[in-house]
């Protein structure tokens, strides 16, 4: 009896999990399917599930109207650039907080996190003016810089959590073995923290790739990334639903694939330290 009940429970939970997963995936699936419909079919009052007239013309139209590859290139530069810059700043910062804490370290960590709780629009005007005066508007390096800064708290927090798991004895042994700070970090800490650093890198590439608020407000033609590319297809007028879907699909495909292949690493990274 107990066995039967447990099988029933398991079937129930499995069905529930699948239901939730499908619910979450539904909008993405709908976007994928719409990308292959004609504009007329996409907007039809009795919507179709599968494309009745399978077409690739939306993708051609999207590439013709605004350059996908240029935007994709910008996305790659900004997401990778900001993540690498963030790691270069975050690794020494997290080292200091994990291995040389002071009375104020906890406060600094909380303060950094608190900046993520503020709505971005709250600092839009000062940042826009600073960017205008420093001539950073619509530049890749300006966008990389702001992306580094907004993601830095998350980078430092994640690295801090991983570094806390590393026995301080091993770093002290390196010091006793004659390693100065640089060698201690490069030859001992970083190789031991590779899983943590890798998942920090993956998560931040994804966050920077998907960031829309600052890319849309601080760029126009030159430095626009794929999120700006999608938004250029969202228009209150005209038949753009299928093209918007095609543009979205093109924009999310690379990161979706990356996420798919690295999900094991990401899950391991995000639950790191949860179980000793």
């Amino acid at each position, binding site marked *: 009896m107990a066995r039967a009940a447990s099988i029933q429970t398991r079937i129930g939970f499995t069905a529930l999990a699948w239901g939730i997963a499908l619910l979450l995936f539904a909008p993405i699936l709908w976007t994928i399917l719409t990308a292959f419909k004609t504009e007329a079919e996409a907007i039809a009052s009795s919507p179709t599930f599968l494309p009745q007239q399978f077409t690739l013309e939306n993708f051609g139209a999207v590439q013709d109207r605004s350059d996908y590859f240029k935007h994709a290139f910008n996305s790659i530069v900004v997401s990778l650039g900001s993540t690498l810059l963030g790691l270069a700043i975050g690794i020494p910062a997290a080292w200091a907080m994990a291995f040389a804490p002071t009375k104020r370290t906890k406060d600094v960590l909380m303060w950094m996190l608190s900046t993520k709780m503020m709505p971005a629009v709250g600092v839009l005007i000062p940042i826009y003016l600073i960017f205008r005066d420093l001539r950073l508007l619509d530049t890749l390096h300006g966008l990389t810089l702001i992306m580094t800064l907004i993601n830095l708290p998350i980078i430092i927090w994640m690295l801090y959590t991983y570094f806390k798991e590393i026995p301080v004895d*091993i770093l002290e*042994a390196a*010091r*006793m*073995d*004659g390693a100065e700070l640089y060698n201690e970090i490069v030859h001992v800490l970083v190789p031991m923290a590779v899983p943590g650093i890798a998942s920090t890198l993956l998560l931040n590439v994804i966050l920077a790739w998907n960031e829309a608020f600052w890319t849309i407000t601080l760029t126009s033609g030159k430095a626009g990334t794929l999120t700006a590319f999608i938004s250029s297809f969202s228009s209150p007028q005209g038949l753009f639903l299928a093209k918007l879907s095609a543009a979205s699909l093109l924009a999310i495909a690379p990161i979706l694939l990356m996420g798919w292949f690295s999900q094991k690493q990401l899950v391991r990274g995000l639950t790191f330290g949860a179980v000793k």
Partner: protein
Amino acid sequence: MGSISLSHVKKSFGEVQIIPDISLDIKEGEFVVFVGPSGCGKSTLLRLIAGLEDTTSGTILLDGVDMTKAPPARRGLAMVFQSYALYPHMTVRDNIAFPLKMAKAPKEVIDQKVEYAARTLNLSSYLDRRPRALSGGQRQRVAIGRAIVREPKAFLFDEPLSNLDAALRVNMRLEITELHQQLKTTMIYVTHDQVEAMTMADRIVVLNAGRVEQFGSPLDLYKKPANRFVAGFIGSPRMNFVDGPEAARYNASSIGVRPEHFTLATSPAAGTWKGKVGVAEQLGSDTFLHVHVDGLGLMTIRTDGDQTFSHGDDVYLTPDPARIYRFDAAGLAL
């Protein structure tokens, strides 16, 4: 090379004073053991010498040079940690080579020294393994190998054997003592195990609450303990203490008698103190009797292994009058 001198070294963590004021002179080539109960500050003292903690005040001289403010990497000391602290991402070879790489030694020199250290420590066949594929004893050898190749001014050992099982601990104890005889380099060894201290040390520093209770050779501490704390800490099983009127008969506030300094009798005529055997621990070579002495409490008596006693037996104890330790009210030896 290898003298270490501490002068009025103090260490506090915030409000908490760990080491109130310690001055010590460790001679070149000496094997010194810091021993004391947990929390006595022995590890902190070692870490101050290593440079892993900053002193609050006082000076540390290594070979006569003031190193109080020098970072650990510049002090030229090597340390073996309780947790071994091997680099898990490196092979045994790379672990041992690491200090030499940091010192930018040429590759041939590194290879030669690593091979030599590996041969000395019986690690030659494990050089390409990672630390996780080694047993505890082997890991400890790698940690020692990593310390040896640096040819340091002194070796610092922080409870290096406490993660090993009993049999291995005895072996490694001998190996470290032999290593000291072979290298003749200054060694400071921290332990809470007084047997390790007695068997390995040239001189022992007994620490209690951040203070040096006594600094001397193992037999000095055993024969002439400076105070009740040292008397109780050195020697196994520990010394028996008696307070009150019985101690007053010897003009002392308390007296101590070691378990091995009693004569044991079964007839009342020969005995001073009468008691009943509680537990008899028979080790074969020795027997430890835990005796409930009338009016004085529990005492441990060491006797030879051929004696057979059992629970409830009446015994009569006579302390060897020449080996009764007398202490004043402050616990100092009289």
